[in-house]
């Protein structure tokens, strides 16, 4: 079953890349407003990554990351998980709040409420843009719930994605989108995690399988 799952996803990577492209396009203009600067986006990459390798996507399982999980319900059920490296997350927060960027490597590093809310708002924009791209291509409606933030080891945060996918196979669909501004690049890593039934519905609605 797992090989089948992986080969179906791999076959349609271009479609998921297109979803990423449309989503990133929406997100870039929304982010520009929030961050008060021009944001450009590059073509995202879509890949099917085995569980055993996924933790290497962001420098290993103990890397400190910000993860935002959004629950989807409606015609499409499941989750979208957005991962941002801590440096990237804090540089966006600093820009939005127009404050100097903080050193994330300090042992006492912790986010203030204001910073957490800002990060959640950024995640909302990114995930909302991505979600509207999925909806416009598949015709499936899904309502996102209030996002949940966790700042912890990459491996621990990824568990949730892998557990849902773990019921279908041994790999996960992964979209990496790069946003650029004057100061450098910011990588947003998206994991699309439909539940078992929605996974089939999504592929069918995109006209891919079924």
């Amino acid at each position: 079953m797992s090989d089948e799952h992986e080969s179906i996803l791999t076959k349609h990577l271009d479609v998921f890349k297109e979803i990423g492209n449309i989503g990133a396009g929406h997100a870039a203009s929304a982010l520009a407003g929030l961050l008060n600067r021009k944001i450009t986006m590059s073509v995202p990459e879509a890949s099917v990554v085995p569980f055993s390798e996924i933790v290497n996507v962001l420098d290993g399982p103990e890397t400190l990351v910000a993860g935002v999980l959004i629950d989807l319900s409606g015609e499409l059920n499941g989750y979208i998980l957005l991962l941002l490296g801590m440096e990237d997350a804090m540089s966006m927060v600093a820009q939005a709040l127009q404050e100097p960027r903080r050193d994330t490597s300090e042992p006492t590093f912790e986010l203030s409420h204001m910073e957490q809310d800002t990060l959640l708002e950024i995640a909302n924009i990114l995930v909302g843009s991505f979600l509207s791209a999925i909806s416009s291509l598949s015709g499936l409606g899904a309502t996102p719930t209030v996002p949940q933030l966790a700042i912890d080891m990459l491996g621990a945060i990824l568990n949730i994605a892998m557990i849902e996918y773990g019921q279908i196979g041994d790999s996960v669909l992964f979209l990496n989108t790069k946003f650029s501004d004057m100061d450098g690049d910011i990588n947003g890593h998206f994991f699309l995690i439909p539940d078992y039934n929605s996974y089939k519905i999504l592929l069918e609605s995109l006209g891919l399988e079924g």
Partner: protein
Amino acid sequence: MATIIVGMADLKVAKAPDILTTLGLGSCVGITLYDKINKAGGMAHCMLPTYKGFEGQSIAKFVDSAVIELIKQLERLGIQRRSLVAKITGGAHMFGGNANNDLLKIGERNAAAGLAILKQLAIPVIAQDTGGKHGRTIELIMDTGALKIRTVGLGEKFI
């Protein structure tokens, strides 16, 4: 001395002076078995509570089948089941949100599945550090049987 990494949905056994480690447990559970006479043990990093319904998939991914497989591999090293003791860690609730949501409660179910299978196999659980909202990295030190737990922001401890 070698440090042997146990990946996600993976299990390994080792003898002193080696160390078994698994990095970044979230809602997954880390189950360790240890025999102090032979200074040998095993570690599993499991994602889901039970193998039932998922036959054909990797047995290390599931709590119940992973524990049974660990015991088999330890028995092959000449270790007797009755000399084994267990420790269980992980099973955190990384994201808040809907408390009735099955996926988000998976950590709790994984930990419960670990306790249940170990009880069924009559292996005593001598230490437990499960739940909470934080990730854990664990190391089982074969020389002593001590289990070191490392977290982000909550420091290190031994159980």
